């Protein structure tokens, strides 16, 4: 119980000393949060599950690479975002681009389609359609609710760029989701 109340950084320090229980607690803390982020990024559950496992394996294998200077969550998001980026890029090479317009312009009026499942599908497709650099900022800011500073640190860009990418990403999403927003 004491360990579960400890901060991420303390747990990581414990894990670096060789305590595998600390690792298990960290996995329990972050698996759902990271899953939400990675799934929204790649848009496929199996891929997201695989990326998530790979993220924790990296954490396990490269535990010595973590320095307590950085926030643990930021470091973990960086690993997950990089893996998700690589996977998304690979997927984009193999799959043809299917836009959100396919669903939204399928002949049915938007209000008939707009039950929750379809609405979520449309939003997910819109997310997949915007450029990856905007998507990751939007996801980290609006869904994961990280601060600008944390996002800047996780992605490795400055705060000004985070803000501009966030604004552009949101405006692109707004354009793609205007049917749903106008309801």
């Amino acid at each position, binding site marked *: 119980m004491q360990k579960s109340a400890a901060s991420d950084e303390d747990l990581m320090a414990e894990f670096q000393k060789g305590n595998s229980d600390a690792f298990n607690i960290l996995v329990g803390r972050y*698996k759902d949060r990271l899953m939400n982020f990675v799934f929204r990024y790649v848009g496929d559950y199996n891929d997201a599950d695989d990326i998530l496992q790979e993220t924790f394996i990296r954490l396990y294998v490269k535990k010595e690479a973590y320095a307590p200077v950085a926030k643990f969550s930021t470091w973990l998001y960086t690993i997950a975002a990089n893996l998700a980026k690589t996977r998304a890029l690979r997927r984009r090479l193999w799959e043809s681009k299917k836009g959100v317009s396919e669903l939204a312009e399928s002949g049915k009026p938007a209000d008939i389609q707009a039950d929750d499942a379809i609405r979520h599908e449309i939003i997910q497709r819109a997310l997949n359609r915007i450029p990856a650099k905007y998507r990751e900022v939007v996801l980290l800011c609006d869904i994961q609710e990280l601060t600008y500073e944390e996002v800047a640190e996780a992605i490795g860009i400055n705060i000004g760029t985070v803000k501009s990418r966030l604004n552009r990403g949101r405006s692109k999403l707004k354009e793609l989701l205007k049917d749903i927003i106008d309801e």
Partner: protein
Amino acid sequence: MNDASKNPEDSPVKNLLKNLPEIKASPDFEEKLSRRINTLGKWGHLGTRLLRRPLPVFAYSLIAVAAVGMISYYIFIRSGIQPADLKQDKLQYSPAQPANSATRKEEEKGAVVEEGKKVSREAPSSLSLGKEERSDKGKLRMGDKDIPPAPFGAPKTTAGGEYRSAVSAAAPQAQLKSLRDSLAVIDSLRLDSLQRAQKQLKMKEQKAGQRKHAE
């Protein structure tokens, strides 16, 4: 929380994203993870990393180059197609022509024979030392008789040399014939030109004689 969230224009998008259902990891996620971690050896991890990486771009060009090499090997080398120079060498070298062999002998002695020149005019590439070396090294001469080399893919000669004797009986005769024909043509052309020259000389002499008589 964020400054951007204060912007009223962006709030609908943010609300939409916030209202998305949370995606959770699979219930057996931790089990799968521990299994993967337990199977992680040094080599296992390296293997998964290598397999997960996409092929580098130059790999495709390497494959293409290898394919072209294989195809050209089978087309040009395995099929026995040779460059024109080699063919001419063979043609010049192979026939068991008495005159030819005689010139060769004379050439070996260092003498230049008219007959040999004729042959070299007929076939553009001249007799070379390399060719003779080949004939010596390959032991393709049996006494005075030249034996052509075996074509590609033909069975090796037996101890008795049946194959080579059979070929030397058939193929060189045809080549010999064609060579003789061409030599005959050349000779006839020369005879014609000689006769013409003689006629012209006679005519000139006659004219000169007539002029003298007139004077």
